[in-house]
């Protein structure tokens, strides 16, 4: 009997199983079809299928979601609301469902019900942080940033945690362009975990590129710092001030930070490396006065001296006595012998002696002593190049030539340095009156038009080629005068140029002579004298090839040195009238516009 029943039941189970599998497959196929209709934006068809599918399984969330999506696409908000309400009857405390229902009401234009549903969700699980995140996220998705902020603030209050949701709130305030509040929240986050400083800097940097963002971040940080005196907050303030290029104030903050953290000078040293020379100089000076880590002392001294050098280089008059700078470099070299920084310090003193104090012998002595050091290998080519230039300035032209040639023998010499040395060698040949040799050397440079020296080389080559045959003798004197100008021997240079005027009264080079004299008197700040020479050139050679340069320079002197705007404009307008095709025309036009005060 049992056996008989079993034989009966077995096929039934088999058929039920097969039927069930077929049904499942059918449902699956229909679901996929609905999704496909959705993809091709045929929402009506998709709705029909989802509705039949939901009739077979009213709790299937995939069907519910699909149908809800399609209702929203077709703006069938009442149906979408009805669908979710049915689900809510089954799970009245489902926060996610409440959030979505609220969203649907909001989309339908009923903000009041939306708000009350979201509030209901928040009240139902008020002690759960995630509920606030779910609701705020729905509000954020619908660009209800104000409401999302209120939700997080409500959570913060209800859970009695004043720092909760700082990151989320900071992001929201930032999106809302409320930079004050955003910074306040980032500071809260920072005070919770100071390791977040770098992350917070990257977030704040999103708005500090705008002035109002930077101003907000600064004022909030300063205010909070006055209340807490927290060192990480001070570091944030320092960074903000540097971002705003307010280096003076930043320096004061850096000093306080140094005092507060007892970092043995590292705070100040790091600061000095990020700011302009003037402020860096103050920072290095400060560093030298306070107790620092021993390794920082030489760096501070070197930094101080180097900043001083650069400040002097960018000013017409030396602001810091060179002797003071040399003393600083020397003390580094003496206190830290056989170090890289000692080598660099000595090298810098050699440069100062040659370029600023014109004490070529001392400079050469230093360079020679450095060239003997094994450590100098890394800067060997720089040392040789400097040595060659010192020889040239000193007037020892043959030694200069020899040293530049030696420099060119270095196999590892970079292209830039090689071209510079070649140009120097060509110029030496020119100064010596060996015009053919100069031309040959210049030819190599002219062929490489990408090099920085190509332009200078081309100019000198064409000048030599133009006058080396017709005016060889006076060209030799002229070249010597140019060497004197390079060596800052201006009186000697003027004497040589006078000699050309006297000995070769009909020379075609004379217009260059007048131009060169004007240049020399400009360098000597004898501006009226300079103008006289330029004007003489214009009168004697009204069609000369350098007349436009002379007229331009007169305009420049009136503009920059004599500061006579009206006269300067008059000269420039004369220039535009006389030389409309000149390569200087664009520059002249620009200067007239600047002088007229035009908005360019």
């Amino acid at each position, binding site marked *: 009997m049992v056996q008989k029943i079993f034989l009966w039941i077995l096929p039934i189970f088999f058929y039920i199983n097969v039927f069930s599998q077929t049904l499942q497959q059918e449902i699956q196929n229909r679901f996929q079809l609905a999704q496909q209709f959705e993809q091709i934006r045929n929402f009506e068809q998709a709705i029909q299928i989802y509705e039949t599918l939901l009739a077979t399984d009213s709790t299937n969330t995939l069907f519910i979601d699909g149908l809800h999506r399609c209702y929203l696409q077709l703006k069938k908000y009442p149906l979408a609301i009805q669908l979710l309400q049915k689900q809510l009857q089954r799970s009245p405390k489902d926060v996610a469902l409440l959030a979505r229902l609220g969203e649907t009401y909001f989309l339908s234009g009923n903000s009041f019900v939306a708000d009350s549903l979201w509030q209901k969700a928040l009240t139902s699980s008020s002690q759960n942080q995630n509920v606030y995140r779910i609701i705020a996220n729905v509000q954020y998705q619908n660009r209800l940033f104000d409401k999302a902020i209120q939700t997080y603030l409500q959570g913060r209050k209800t859970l009695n945690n004043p720092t909760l949701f700082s990151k989320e709130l900071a992001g929201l305030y930032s999106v809302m*362009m409320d930079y004050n509040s955003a910074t306040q929240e980032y500071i809260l986050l920072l005070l919770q975990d100071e390791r977040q400083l770098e992350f917070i800097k990257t977030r704040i940097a999103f708005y500090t590129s705008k002035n109002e963002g930077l101003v907000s971040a600064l004022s909030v940080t300063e205010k909070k710092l006055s209340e807490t005196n927290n060192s990480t907050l001070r570091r944030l303030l320092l960074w903000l001030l540097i971002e705003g290029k307010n280096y003076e104030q930043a320096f004061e903050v850096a000093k306080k930070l140094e005092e507060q953290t007892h970092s043995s000078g590292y705070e100040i040293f790091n600061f000095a490396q990020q700011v302009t020379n003037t402020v860096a100089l103050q920072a290095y000076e400060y560093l030298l006065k306070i107790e620092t880590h021993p390794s920082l002392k030489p760096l501070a001294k070197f930094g101080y001296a180097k900043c001083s050098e650069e400040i002097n280089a960018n000013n017409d008059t030396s602001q810091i006595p060179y002797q003071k700078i040399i003393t600083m470099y020397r003390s580094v070299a003496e206190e830290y012998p056989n170090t890289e920084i000692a080598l660099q310090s000595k090298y810098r003193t050699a440069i100062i002696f040659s370029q600023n104090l014109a004490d070529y012998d001392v400079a050469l002595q230093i360079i020679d002593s450095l060239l003997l050091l094994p450590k100098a290998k890394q800067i060997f080519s720089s040392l040789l190049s400097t040595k060659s230039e010192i020889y040239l300035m000193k007037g020892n032209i043959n030694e200069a030539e020899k040293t530049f040639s030696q420099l060119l023998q270095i196999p590892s010499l970079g292209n830039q340095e090689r071209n510079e040395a070649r140009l120097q060698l060509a110029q030496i040949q020119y100064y010596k009156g060996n015009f053919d040799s100069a031309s040959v050397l210049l030819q190599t440079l002219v062929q490489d038009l990408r090099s920085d020296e190509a332009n200078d080389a081309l100019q000198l080559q064409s000048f030599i080629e133009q006058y080396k045959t017709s005016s060889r003798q006076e060209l030799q004197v002229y070249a010597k005068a140019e060497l004197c100008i390079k060596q800052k021997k201006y009186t000697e240079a003027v004497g040589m140029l006078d000699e050309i005027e006297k000995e070769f009264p009909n020379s075609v080079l004379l217009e260059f002579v007048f131009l060169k004299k004007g240049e020399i008197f400009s360098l000597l700040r004898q501006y009226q004298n300079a103008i006289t020479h330029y004007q003489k050139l214009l009168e004697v050679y009204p069609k000369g090839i350098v007349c436009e340069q002379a007229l331009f320079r007169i305009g420049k002197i009136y503009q920059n040195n004599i500061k006579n705007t009206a006269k300067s404009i008059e000269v420039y307008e004369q220039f535009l009238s006389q030389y409309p095709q000149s390569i200087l025309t664009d520059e002249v036009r620009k200067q*007239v516009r600047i002088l007229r005060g035009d908005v360019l």
Partner: protein
Amino acid sequence: MLALTPLTAQQKLLIPMDAKQTNHLKAYGIAYWALEKNIEVDWMLNYRGGSFLVNNIPLLANECRIRGVLYEELADYTKILSEVNAENSNTESVRLEKPPKIAVYVPKNFKPWDDAVTLALEYAEIPYTKIWDDEVLQGKLSEYDWLHLHHEDFTGQYGKFYASQHNTQWYNEQQLTYERKAKELGFKKVSEEKNAVAQAIKTYVANGGFMFAMCSATDSYDIALAAEGIDICDVMFDGDPPDANAQQKLDFTKTFAFQNFTLETNPFRYEYSDIDNPQSEPVPIRDPSTDYFTLFDFSAKYDPVPTMLIQNHVNIVKGFMGQTTAFKKNLIKPGIIILGEREESDEVKYLHGNYGRGTFTFYGGHDPEDYQHAVGDPPTDLNLHKNSPGYRLILNNILFPAAKKKQQKT
């Protein structure tokens, strides 16, 4: 005052606009400057590239020199004038009356791209006023003769930059600013507010205004007109899905230049419709060295307006791309004047039409001297393109409203 007095009545300056001109773009600025100073300017259509004939005043010649504009002194200009006005010559002189008041529609906040018209105006030193939605909706357009629109989106889809830019700061700030502005002006959605702006501009043109649009302002403007009252924006733009039947509901009778176009409904695609030709996505592969468009020839005496708009020293102009590069010919309404097109293709680059008492001109592409101007690219330095034929077309549009209306010859 003395400087403003002509030397003699017969003496004039000719500012040639052919290949001899050293700075075509600044020459337009000189013409505008002269008009501002009540100096007579005649635009010599089709004569040496559309030259300007101006009274010979020392101040003007000096200004030409300072701005780098080439001029020729004419002892007797009447010969040229009679040559230009001769019946058998396709040339004509048009007296420019007054400097047009120019408005440029640009947002107050930063946008990470440049506007070719603003660049051209600033380079040519032609003054203009920036206006935005507030001013347009307050009816202030009537204070201006000329309105320029550039890379704007009148559909409320934020330039359809969503796919590539929605995580960038500028995009988010733009969206928030626009939303706030729409709300402030009493609109629920940005798309609705932009549509109201488009309608206000339409009224301005109908009342006799001159509108010039470039790049995406062209097609997005017409789309906005056709979609009045229809939601064509997807959820990321206005918070809800578009009308499922938006395409069928478009009313092409409301547009200026285009009809029968199909909307691009994919919000991730950087394109508004099929008007743009070639489509922006995928990025078209073209050889810039062979991409040119040709300007049509018009009768200077019988069609002075299109003639003014195409004045140039070349008639084949270098092509350039933009979000809207050019327009599909078969989608252009009948009656629209095609000013320039890419030969042997269905691409129209430059077109002109009338609406009510005013006119509109659409010019495809973003920057005539930057083949593919991308978001964040530096602005084009027009000092390097003083003779740009593409930029000249923009400046023709600026002077054209200054022309004195002559009695039609037909």
